[in-house]
C-alpha cells in the first residue's frame, strides 16, 4: 500500500516538476521567470533606461546650444538688415512699402507685355507712363535695396521687351529692290513673315500698285501693322454683307464694294489680308 502510494506520488511530482521546468524555460511571462533570469532582465531594462537618460541629457544640451546659435544668427541677420535700412535711409516699413510699389509696377507691366504687338503699339502712351513710373522709383535710394533692385531690373527688362514687341507693329516703309515681288516682300521676317499677306501690301498701296504683278524698284510701299480708322482688314470667313453689318447695316455692302472696286473684281470674292476702305467712317 505504502509502496504504491510512494510510486504514485513520485510520478505525479515528477510530471508536475518537469512541466514547470519546461514552462519556465520557454515563457516570457515574468511570473514564470526564474529569479536569476528576472534579475538579468531587470538589469537589462535598467541599463537601457540609464543609457537613454544619459543620451537625453546630451541631446537636451545640444538642443539648448542650437537654439542659442539660432537666436544669435537671427539677431545678426536683424542687425545686418538694420544696417541696410540705415544705408538706404529708411526703415523696415518704408522698405516694404517701396518694395510693394515696385511689385505693383511689375504686376501692371506683366499684363501689358502679354498683349499683342498691335495692342502694345496702340497703347504706347501707357508704356511711356510705365517708363516714367520706373524712372520715379529709380530716383529713390530704396531702389538700391536687394529686393527692389531685382524687381526693378525685371521691370526694366519687361519694358525693353514691350518696346521690342511693339516695334513690328509700327507702320513701316519698304523700298522695292530689283527682283522683288509682293509675295517675296510679305514673306520677309521684318515685314509680315507671311507671304499670303502680300494682299495687305497691295491693297494698302493701291495708289501705287495698279497691277499686283507689276511693281518697280525704288517704289516705297507703306507696310501697315494695324488697321487704320477707316480701314477694315479682311479675315477668313468674311463677306461684304457681314462687314457692312458690323459697321451699320448689311445693306450698305454695296457702298463698301464701290469704295474698293479697284481691288474687288467680284463682290462675292474678297480675300483674307485685303485692306478695305470703309466709306463714310
Amino acid at each position: 500500500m505504502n509502496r504504491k502510494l510512494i510510486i504514485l506520488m513520485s510520478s505525479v511530482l515528477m510530471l508536475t516538476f518537469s512541466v514547470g521546468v519546461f514552462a519556465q524555460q520557454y515563457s516570457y511571462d515574468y511570473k514564470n521567470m526564474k529569479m536569476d533570469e528576472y534579475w538579468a532582465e531587470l538589469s537589462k531594462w535598467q541599463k537601457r533606461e540609464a543609457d537613454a537618460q544619459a543620451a537625453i541629457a546630451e541631446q537636451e544640451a545640444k538642443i539648448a546650444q542650437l537654439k542659442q546659435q539660432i537666436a544669435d544668427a537671427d539677431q545678426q541677420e536683424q542687425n545686418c538688415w538694420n544696417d541696410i535700412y540705415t544705408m538706404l535711409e529708411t526703415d523696415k516699413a518704408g522698405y516694404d512699402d517701396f518694395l510693394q510699389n515696385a511689385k505693383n509696377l511689375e504686376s501692371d507691366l506683366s499684363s501689358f507685355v502679354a498683349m499683342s504687338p498691335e495692342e502694345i503699339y496702340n497703347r504706347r502712351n501707357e508704356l511711356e507712363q510705365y517708363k516714367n513710373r520706373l524712372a520715379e522709383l529709380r530716383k529713390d535710394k530704396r531702389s538700391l535695396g536687394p529686393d527692389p533692385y531685382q524687381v526693378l531690373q525685371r521691370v526694366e527688362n519687361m519694358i525693353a521687351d514691350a518696346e521690342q514687341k511693339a516695334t513690328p507693329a509700327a507702320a513701316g516703309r519698304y523700298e522695292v529692290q530689283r527682283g522683288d515681288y509682293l509675295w517675296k516682300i510679305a514673306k520677309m521676317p521684318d515685314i509680315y513673315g507671311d507671304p499670303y499677306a502680300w494682299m495687305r501690301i497691295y491693297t494698302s498701296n493701291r495708289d501705287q500698285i495698279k497691277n499686283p504683278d507689276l511693281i518697280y524698284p525704288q517704289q516705297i510701299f507703306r507696310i501697315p501693322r494695324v488697321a487704320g480708322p477707316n480701314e477694315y482688314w479682311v479675315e477668313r470667313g468674311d463677306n461684304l454683307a457681314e462687314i457692312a453689318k458690323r459697321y451699320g447695316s448689311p445693306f450698305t455692302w454695296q457702298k463698301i464694294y464701290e469704295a474698293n472696286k479697284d481691288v474687288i473684281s467680284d463682290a462675292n470674292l474678297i480675300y483674307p489680308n485685303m485692306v478695305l476702305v470703309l466709306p463714310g467712317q
Partner: protein
Amino acid sequence: MVGVKLLRRWLVSGAVIGSLFFAFGCTSHPNDNQIRQMEETRSAALSAEQRLDDLTKQRQQLESELAQKQKELQQCETNKADVQKRLDNWGTEQ
C-alpha cells in the same frame, strides 16, 4: 516495530511534502512587487528611448534650421556689400 513504521511514515510524508514544496514553491519566481518593478522599469526605459528619438529628431530639425539661418545671414551680408557698391555708384550717377 511500531517505532520503525512511524519513522517510515514520517519519512514518506516528509518526502512528499518536500517534493510538493520543491515543485511549487521552492523554485523562486518573482513576486507581484518584483513584477510591478520590472514592468515599471521596462516602461520607463521604453519611454526614455521614445523621448530620446523625439529629441534626436528635434535636434536634426534645429540643425537644418541653423544651417538655413546661417545661409540667410551670409546672403544678407552679400546684399549689404552689394547695396554699398550700388550706393557708391548711385552717388556718381545722380
